[in-house]
């Protein structure tokens, strides 16, 4: 009888163990890139929820009540800061709680730039890989302070990830150095690559006037062509112009190459080439190299 009881107790303990040992930490990240970073550091110890998912636009994100609920249920909220999430204060208030908030970009040196026609602090700091190493450290510190038991796991993951990031940084520098210096400039409609430009020495030129709306004017087209010709810009990345044929026409007449897709502030969906941060940066440098190498 006693042996049976012990068996039951033992089985009970065993069955109870998984529930006791690994209840993942609920973390909410503001957008897909941060979500990936948290996942890299936290591993299985965290369950990450992302507010602005892959291929979605954080600038037009409109928080819904269900997002407030997710926030309320989270133990940690990771945001970019630098003004990227204009809606976050409202959302935190709506969630009724004051979850532990970590701003990933603390310690990053920022600059001001022209974003969407307005001058402001450029929030796209993740385009410089060395900044993301700071992001990762901030996230790791936050996770460790909330979940000390996982400290070893987090530190190990951080070390591994940091090494990967360092390698990535070198890889990007090497790729750019391989491009002749007079060819290190592109025309792009994205205004999110300021940090990339500063860190790696590629000049990002905004096309004068060509809007992303459907109807271009002859004046705008002429201006871009003149600009590309006179500054000898090797490639144009005009994916945001809704008419691909217009981009082709501009490229043909100005002698520039048409660049592929550049990922600025969101990851792609899983089966596409930019499913994680590192994959995203590698995809971008591949496109740049392809476009700029003579």
């Amino acid at each position, binding site marked *: 009888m006693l042996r049976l009881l012990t068996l039951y107790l033992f089985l009970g303990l065993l069955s109870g163990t998984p529930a006791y040992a690994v209840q993942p930490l609920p973390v909410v990240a503001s957008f897909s890139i941060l979500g990936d970073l948290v996942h890299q550091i936290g591993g299985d110890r965290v369950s990450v929820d992302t507010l602005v998912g892959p291929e979605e636009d954080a600038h037009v994100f409109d928080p819904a009540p269900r997002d407030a609920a997710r926030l309320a249920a989270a133990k940690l909220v990771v945001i970019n800061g630098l003004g990227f999430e204009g809606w976050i204060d409202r959302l935190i208030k709506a969630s009724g709680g004051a979850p532990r908030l970590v701003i990933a970009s603390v310690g990053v040196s920022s600059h001001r730039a022209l974003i969407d026609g307005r001058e402001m602090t450029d929030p796209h700091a993740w385009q410089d890989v060395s900044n993301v190493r700071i992001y990762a450290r901030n996230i790791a510190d936050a996770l460790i302070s909330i979940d000390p038991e996982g400290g070893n796991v987090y530190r190990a993951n951080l070390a591994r990830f940091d090494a990967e990031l360092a390698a990535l940084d070198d890889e990007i520098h090497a790729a750019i150095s391989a491009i002749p210096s007079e060819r290190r400039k592109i025309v792009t409609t994205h205004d999110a690559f300021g940090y990339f430009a500063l860190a790696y020495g590629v000049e990002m030129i905004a096309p004068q*006037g060509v809007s992303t709306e*459907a*109807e*271009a*004017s*002859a*004046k*705008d*087209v*002429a201006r871009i*062509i003149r600009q590309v010709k006179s500054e000898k810009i090797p490639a144009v990345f005009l994916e945001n112009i*809704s*008419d691909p*044929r*217009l981009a*082709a*026409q*501009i490229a*043909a*007449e100005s002698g520039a190459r048409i660049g592929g897709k550049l990922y600025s502030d969101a990851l792609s969906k899983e089966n596409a080439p930019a499913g994680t941060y590192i994959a995203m940066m590698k995809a971008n440098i591949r496109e740049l190299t392809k476009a700029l190498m003579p």
Partner: protein
Amino acid sequence: MTGFSYLYDLLITPFTDFAFMRRALVGSIALSIGACPIGVFLMLRRMSLVGDAMAHAILPGAALGYLFAGLSLGFMTAGGLIAGFVVALLAGLVTRVTILKEDAALASFYLISLAGGVVLVSLRGSNVDLLHVLFGSVLALDDNTLLLLAASTTVSLLALAVLFRPLVLECVDPLFLRTVSQSGSVSHFGFLALVVLNLVAGFHALGTLLSVGLMMVPAFAARFWSATLDGMIAVATLIGIFSSGIGIVISYHAGTPTGPTIILSAGGLYLLSILFGQRNGLILRVLPRKHLAA
């Protein structure tokens, strides 16, 4: 001489400097030559709104092309042409055989067609704006598109020459035509086919607004300058060509979207024609002029 060189810089230099400007001009001139005569007939037959209806009618054809072959311009254009022909055919048939008149017949089929197109597009589930993809821009005319325009204009002119007399008689005295000839049906459907051809070629190359606008507005203006059919066709074509040139130049200097600017130029010429036209112009009616002796 400086006045002349200023004018030269204003009007000619943009075209000598930029290939895309030359192409835009050639393309819209080609379209004018093919479409303006058709527009005169449409106006005289009180079918001026057909162009707009047709733009919607071709949607299911483009949708089928998309379902079949994805974002392939060739398939989508072919699909659009077929859908346009079918709608025109059915409308013509219903007009001739039933009690419904031309306007009701056409409206019925383009509405059905449009609804069908919307359903087909939603089947595929994606949010792609098909019409946007199908319709081009006058600033983006590559070699293939120019060839398409040239071919469609040539076919259109030849067919119009062949169909001219039966078409005229069918407009003026259809009953008489029926008593003397069998070619009434041929000319009727042939004409509708020409309308579809010019419109679809125009959509593909230049977008909906430009295609329909360039077909119709010069015809309306020509009404005020000529009382004969040949005269109207000639004047309409000339106005179409001029509007194209003026519109492109204005878009170049003022930075306005090119397609709409061409139509606005045509519109301007149209308003001037209403006022100053030699036939039924308003000014002419207001000014006191002595009537002739006999």
